[in-house]
């Protein structure tokens, strides 16, 4: 700590006089704040702002509970947007109001961390109402500190959902009128009506006594998260001297005199223990999920988790990403579902992510299929290993995304004349015509699946037949599909040479 050279007393003199430090800057704060080149020794908050006090209470609790190194602090949008310049912990800053949603993701990915969402009333109670209500309702094991100053501070004093009746703001210049602007939103009360939250309290930074109560509440909320009990929420009534146009001492009194009668201080919820039923995610065996018996089908490559027997198919990939695209109605999404179910039966982790317009038929549709030996991080595929393009539109749109050295299966006898060959191999298959000859154009996707399996050997054709068997009830349709699968495989074996690249004229060289 640097002191003014004009200071009458130096720290060394105080210590020499037999004193010990009892309260000093928390180690949870950075030594200097690198937000700007100048003024790195003080926060950007106005004199008398409640944020600074709330920051200090949180920092002190984190230090005392020994949580600094495992804390992830989620900064909001608002005056406290720069909290990450002050707290020497893990920091994330999120879009306006979305802090509880982001905190949910962080906490679920890293349940051992302490995740704090710190939000103002414009952030939490206006644009972020949905996020906070649902995070609380899901009982996410996070801590939310809600700084309520009854106004939008950073943007210059607009009316907030928490603005008091009659309180003037730049957007309620004659005072808030319930008939036009509604009543102040009581977030702590709202959240305490939900079943899941474990701890809900409202405190105020209005005077010495209440600040010390707030200190306890902050600590309790963090202890609840540390112990993994559940969702904790502390609403902190906080002064905003600048926007309220009051001096800091008056502003503090205004919290006590005007805000507390409207937002009564209370412990709305303090549950000691979380109900534990359904706390564990049920893991069901794959055969049960697929509604098949594990003994059914001799050719099945079904691998049960934990089963020592080696799978019948060695998958020559760590992760295999397939994108299937075409018109709605061509079986685009179904083909993806079939592939994922096959992957499940072969003991892989799978994901299927569909995307289609509001029109279920004839609009464009595509889906992402991911087959993996490990847990899949995201079902979204940016660079597929294989693109199955069932029409020209999809070919033109998605071919540039295919990973270098990847494969494109195109549902036409030849490529469009002006089509620039991309970085990937292209195999043209007139699958629709072939399916038509077999008796139904509906089998187009199955022909392409046959070709895909034969060319890439990502999954077994036997598994495909098994899956088709469970999906198709009509005997004649099953027959067509079986033929289609075989036709797709045969096409690759007999009409496309190994390593061939189809040319615009339809020939493979």
């Amino acid at each position, binding site marked *: 700590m640097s002191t003014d050279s004009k200071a009458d007393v130096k720290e060394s003199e105080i210590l020499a006089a037999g004193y010990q430090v009892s*309260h000093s800057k928390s180690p949870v704060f950075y030594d200097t704040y690198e937000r700007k080149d100048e003024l790195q020794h003080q926060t950007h908050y106005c004199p008398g702002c409640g944020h600074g006090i709330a920051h200090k209470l949180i920092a002190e609790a984190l230090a005392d509970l020994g949580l600094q190194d495992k804390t992830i602090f989620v900064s909001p949008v608002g005056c406290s947007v720069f909290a990450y310049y002050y707290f020497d912990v893990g920091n994330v800053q999120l879009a306006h109001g979305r802090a509880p949603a982001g905190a949910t993701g962080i906490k679920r990915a890293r349940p051992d961390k302490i995740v704090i969402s710190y939000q103002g009333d414009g952030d939490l109670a206006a644009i972020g109402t949905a996020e906070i209500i649902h995070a609380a309702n899901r009982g996410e094991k996070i801590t939310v500190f809600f700084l309520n100053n009854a106004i939008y501070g950073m943007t210059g004093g607009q009316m907030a959902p928490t603005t008091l009746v009659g309180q003037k703001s730049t957007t309620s210049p004659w005072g808030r009128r319930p008939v036009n602007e509604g009543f102040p939103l009581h977030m702590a009360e709202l959240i305490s009506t939900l079943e899941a939250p474990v701890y809900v309290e409202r405190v105020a930074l209005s005077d010495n006594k209440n600040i010390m109560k707030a200190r306890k509440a902050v600590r309790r909320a963090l202890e609840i998260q540390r112990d993994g009990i559940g969702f904790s929420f502390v609403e902190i009534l906080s002064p905003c001297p600048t926007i309220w146009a009051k001096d*800091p001492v008056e502003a503090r009194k205004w919290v006590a005199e005007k805000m507390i009668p409207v937002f009564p201080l209370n412990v709305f919820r303090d549950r000691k223990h979380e109900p534990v039923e359904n706390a564990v995610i049920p893991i069901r065996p794959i055969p049960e999920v697929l509604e098949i018996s594990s003994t059914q089908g001799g050719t099945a490559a079904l691998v049960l988790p934990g089963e020592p027997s080696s799978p019948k198919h060695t998958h020559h990939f760590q992760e295999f990403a397939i994108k299937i695209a075409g018109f709605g109605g061509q079986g685009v999404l179904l083909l993806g579902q079939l592939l994922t179910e096959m992957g499940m039966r072969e003991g892989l982790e799978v994901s299927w992510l569909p995307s289609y317009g509001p029109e279920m038929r004839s609009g464009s549709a595509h889906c992402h299929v991911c087959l993996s030996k490990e847990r899949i991080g995201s079902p979204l595929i940016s660079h597929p290993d294989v693109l199955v393009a069932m029409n020209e539109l999809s070919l033109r749109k998605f071919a540039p995304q295919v990973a270098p050295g990847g494969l494109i299966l195109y549902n036409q006898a030849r490529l469009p004349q002006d089509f620039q060959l991309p970085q990937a191999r292209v195999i043209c298959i007139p699958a629709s015509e072939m399916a038509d000859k077999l008796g139904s154009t509906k089998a187009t996707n199955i022909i392409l699946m046959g070709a895909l399996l034969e060319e890439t050997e990502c999954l077994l054709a036997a598994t495909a037949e098994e899956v088709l068997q469970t999906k198709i009830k009509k005997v004649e349709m099953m027959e067509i599909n079986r033929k289609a699968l075989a036709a797709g495989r045969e096409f690759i074996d007999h009409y496309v040479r190994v390593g061939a690249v189809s040319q615009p004229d339809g020939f493979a060289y």
Partner: protein
Amino acid sequence: MAGQPRGNILIDTEECKGCGLCVESCPPECLELRPELNAYGVHAAHYSGDGCTGCGICFYCCPEPGAITVYRLAPPTKPLVQGESHAAAL
């Protein structure tokens, strides 16, 4: 050191924004704003030099993380363990 105040306070004149909350909060009323301005043009808070009890209220009321450091008089060293060397105390 009889008569020495139990507590002591050091205020970082440069970090203090002169809001006056500590002056208002101090139970023994031993803080005041300096009559002169600091480099940023505010009247920084200042310990009058007498009466501090080391309660720490000013620390919690101050919005700046490091503007106030509160000190307490170290407890007198206890050379005795009760019972054992009781005679030595006499």
